[in-house]
């Protein structure tokens, strides 16, 4: 028997935990200065990213505290972060140009928006760029974009008070080897 409910009047009561709360913290991250909108490359490429990491909100603070004992360096680095976002697209024939164009487009946009480029391999074939955003003398965001051969395009955005030295060190120490990352 299908139940019929009288919904409560106020839509504000739907501001609850769960997917809507997930939307809350994602919206909050989007409004931070260190956030980068890479655009929706999946539309242009006609397929979803093969890797999609979107860590943020309460989960990242839990991760920080959970790591406190075993890896205080990691905990400290995570504590200041609002989000860690990684999108990796596998490139099919003809996709590489689309990806490179997008990278150049975003790079131009960031350059005009108080981001500073700190790495650039100005290789038309394989652009690699990294940007830092600062507020005062604090870093509020980090962005990296790579088109690797014609195989994949990687978009990375770390939002929040990033310590790039710690990030680099922890990346080398803890990062899984992604070269051989097989997915299917």
């Amino acid at each position, binding site marked *: 028997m299908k*139940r019929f409910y*009288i919904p409560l009047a106020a839509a504000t009561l739907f501001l609850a935990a*769960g*997917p809507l709360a997930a939307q809350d913290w994602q919206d909050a991250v989007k409004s931070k200065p260190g956030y980068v909108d890479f655009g929706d490359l999946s539309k242009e490429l006609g397929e979803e990213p*093969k*890797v999609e990491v979107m860590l943020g909100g309460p989960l990242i603070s839990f991760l920080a505290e959970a790591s406190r004992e075993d890896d205080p360096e990691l905990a400290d680095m995570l504590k200041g972060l609002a989000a860690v976002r990684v999108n*990796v697209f596998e490139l099919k024939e003809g996709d590489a140009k689309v990806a490179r164009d997008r990278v150049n487009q975003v790079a131009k946009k960031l350059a005009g928006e108080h981001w500073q480029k700190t790495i650039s391999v100005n290789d038309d074939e394989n652009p690699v760029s990294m940007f830092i955003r600062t507020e005062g003398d604090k870093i509020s965001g980090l962005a990296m974009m790579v088109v690797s051969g014609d195989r994949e395009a990687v978009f990375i955005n770390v939002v929040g008070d990033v310590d790039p030295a710690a990030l680099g060190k922890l990346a080398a120490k803890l990062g899984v080897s992604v070269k051989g990352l097989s*997915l*299917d």
Partner: protein
Amino acid sequence: MSGDFQATVQAHKDRLYALAVHLTGDRSEAEDVVQESFMKLWQHRATLDGDATLPWLLSVARNASLDRLRRRRMVPVDGTQLEARESVEPQPDRRLSDEEFTRRLNRAVAELNEPYRSLVVMREMQGLDYQTIAEALALSLSQVKVYLHRTRRRLRHQLSEFAHD
């Protein structure tokens, strides 16, 4: 689309659906929960480790179900409430039937708090092993056992009138 993903969907969809039905009490909500859970699995497929998949899925499905319960700030309208409303004719010899027992038991389970309700559903109704349950519910193995026994004892006390059957 990956064959592995399809295989995973086939392997676990019934389990997730059953959990969601038992937690939300509503089949169409349960369908939404299952779809949502597998969508999340798809998004995370590159980083999930095979052994962790089932506890992770259970945890996602459980949270999604509980979220729906919390968001559902509604009361059932009179007359179409829980199926339990179907009135049970008092048995001529006053012996409570199995159906009545089952109905009462189901209602008692539905009224349990979390994580006790999820525990009972996962262990007693779905037959999941303790380790999987522990991971899905963020409990230790011994907590799983102790809580489970305590919860069934509580159910037993609530249904004590059936003890003399």
